[in-house]
């Protein structure tokens, strides 16, 4: 268990992982028990075993291409290292999964927030992924750190969206800026930036209307929002976070690709991970587009948002195997 111990050497990490584990417990026992049983009942490593592995990863919604690549890499490594016992595969799987995410780079889940400027964070995503709720939670984090946070109601389309964000701003004690329903979201952003400058705001969190990535006109609208922000504040938006529902399947990849073309996504927020879905598609997104995960949503409460930690995530997925 060498690698695994190294992975979780700090006590704190283990404790945090417990929270992940709790949230993801149902899926883990659902799918990954199969893996445990499979590894323990098979005596030799066969092609069938790799096929089963492939299926198990796919069941976690890790993208098909990524899975195929990953499994074929496993095959090679097994051959190279001369591994014969299926039980030795466990460690290898975790190690390789970790490498797949980190890719020898420094991956941070912190947002690029600095004290010497107005920081702008733009939230984008498809309908119903949880953008507004996530903004409420992120605002809470930074207000606790003593920042002055402004929420901007950029969703001027969906009925009730403005009020939903307003209620969140009251809950967490953030400033709030909105215009009438149906106004041009770019103009809302423009005015909000003026407001922020006048009121010495540290962080602007911009909500946007949910949009399906294949709606060309809506994506153009988003491009315009992005352009206006970039024009008004140099280097902004400093973070553009794509909010992805953990139940999302392969479509998550298409979301990341197309949103990234329009807005330059700097991170993913994986919401609703407290259900039975594993959100494995984010691993494919990292693998194919190199977009890291910044946050995971683990519940409806105000502080149920955690910074993403790949070690904890993997542990949450595979903890039961050992």
């Amino acid at each position, binding site marked *: 268990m060498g690698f695994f111990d190294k992975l979780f050497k700090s006590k704190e990490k283990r404790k945090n992982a417990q929270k992940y584990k709790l949230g993801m417990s*149902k*899926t883990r026992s*659902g799918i990954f028990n199969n893996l445990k049983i499979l590894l323990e009942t098979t005596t030799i490593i066969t092609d069938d075993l790799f096929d089963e592995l492939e*299926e198990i990863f*796919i*069941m*976690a*919604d890790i993208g*098909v291409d990524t899975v*195929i690549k990953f499994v074929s890499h496993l095959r090679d490594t097994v051959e190279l290292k001369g591994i014969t016992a299926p039980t030795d595969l466990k460690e290898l799987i975790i190690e390789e999964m970790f490498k797949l995410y980190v890719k020898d780079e420094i991956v941070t889940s912190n947002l690029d927030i600095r004290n010497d400027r107005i920081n702008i964070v733009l939230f984008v995503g*498809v*309908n*119903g*992924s*949880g953008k507004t709720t996530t903004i409420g939670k992120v605002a809470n984090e930074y207000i606790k750190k003593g920042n002055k946070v402004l929420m901007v109601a950029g969703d001027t*389309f*969906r*009925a*009730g*969206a*403005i*009020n*939903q964000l*307003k*209620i*969140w701003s009251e809950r967490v004690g953030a400033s709030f800026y909105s215009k009438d329903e149906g106004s041009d979201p770019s103009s809302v952003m423009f005015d909000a930036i003026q407001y922020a400058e006048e009121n010495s705001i540290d962080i602007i969190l911009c909500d946007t209307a949910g949009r*399906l*990535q*294949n*709606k*060309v006109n809506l994506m153009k609208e988003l491009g315009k929002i992005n352009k206006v922000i970039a024009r008004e504040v140099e280097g902004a938006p400093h973070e553009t976070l794509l909010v992805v*529902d*953990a*139940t*999302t*399947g*392969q*479509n*998550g990849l*298409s979301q990341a690709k197309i949103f990234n073309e329009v807005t330059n996504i700097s991170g993913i927020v994986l919401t*609703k991970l*407290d*259900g*039975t*879905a*594993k959100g494995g*598609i984010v691993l494919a997104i990292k693998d194919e587009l190199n977009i890291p995960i910044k946050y995971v949503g683990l519940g*409806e409460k105000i502080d149920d948002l955690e910074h993403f930690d790949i070690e904890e995530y993997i542990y949450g997925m595979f903890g039961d195997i050992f």
Partner: protein
Amino acid sequence: MAFDNLSDRLQMSLRRVTGKGRLTEKDIEEMMREVRLSLLEADVNFKVVKEFTKTVKEQAMGEKILKGLNPGQQVVKIVHEELKNIMGEKAAPLTINMIGITKIMMVGLQGAGKTTTAGKLAFHLRKNNNLKPLLVALDIYRPAAIEQLKTIGAQLNVDVFEMGIFEKPQTIIKKALEYAVSNGNNLIIADTAGRLHIDNKMMQELVDIKDILKPEEVLLNLDAMTGQDAVNVASSFHETLSVTGAILTKLDGDTRGGAALSLRQVTNIPIKFVGMGEKLDQLEVFHPDRMASRILGMGDVLTLVDKVTENIDEDDMMSLMEKMMSGKYNYDDYLKQLNMIKKMGSLGGMMKLIPGMNKALKGQNIDEKQTIYIKALIQSMTKAERKDPKLISRSSSRRRRVARGSGRSVSDVNKLIQSLEQQGQMMKKMAGMDPSKMNSASALGAMRNTPVKQKKGKGKNRNRFRY
């Protein structure tokens, strides 16, 4: 369009098979791997995929296929039939009480689209079943959820019942029932809060609401983009609430929508509607057989036919079609056609329903604004010019006048002239086209098995224009 990518891959994997005289066992093995991967990539549940490929393989391995004249077509047919089997044979209608109040309960995960769909459903049932709906706001948890429902109600001019966020949903639904009786509503649509299927306390609340409301329909709203977890979600809701049907939302995205395939197979819940857009009239009845055709890239011809009959005068359509096919196609017809399409819904949406167009249109965007410009251009022409397109194409001074009149540039006029010519040519081509060539060999075999509505009377020839 949904399933685009799945049909692409299926077609790709099957292309190797079509055109071959004979199938070896290795061919079938290889094809099944492709089918399996493409279905998994489409988010079909892996258990369903396993069963699916097993059945198809067994049938394909039988002597029937190996002795057949065209094995490729037969495999396509088997795949198509099996897809239909999984998705259920027929479109499942809603249970509507002829006398008394029909009660519908919307349930699902957070963000599935329950509130929007509740509004759409109210609109749909008022329009098609002549009911007087009452929307009931039971989501007391999500901020501004009640306001959202009220706004939708106001947009549709539909009654909304709410008691704020401080009463329990159980109390609200009880009062709503009384209110519906006194207010003369004969349809109740209860919009419940989104919840996780593993949240026992919240699931119990739904059981309570169901006990009080005694709904005819409990409809599970499921995001079409849902991955492998769709089956877990559906099974849990079904076990607790005996769900009577599902609504697949956000199917207008580019998701492959494999959840649709899994649902019925694993949980036996029929899909009754699909959400096709953010506008409140964009709810469509789900047709499993049509969906199977769509998966195989045969276009959703029947939906097109339905849309056309709903909105278009058949005689108008016939004469227009005949004109198109004969090549005598002028600006009057162009304008008429534009108006028709506008009546039927978005241009992009319509084109995708036509077989073959689907692929042809990939990567191209149809700008809805263009139609407005085209209208302006045509309306700036004289009657004679509209009837005889040559007048415009031969005279530059006429072109300049039209440009001035419409506020567009001369190059726009030229573009319109070109487009009219192209349209005429395309239509001529389409009229003379061999259907089997359009959809690769696959369409023929499977098409025969697609029930085509036979019309009597004036519209009976319409099916001629299916291609």
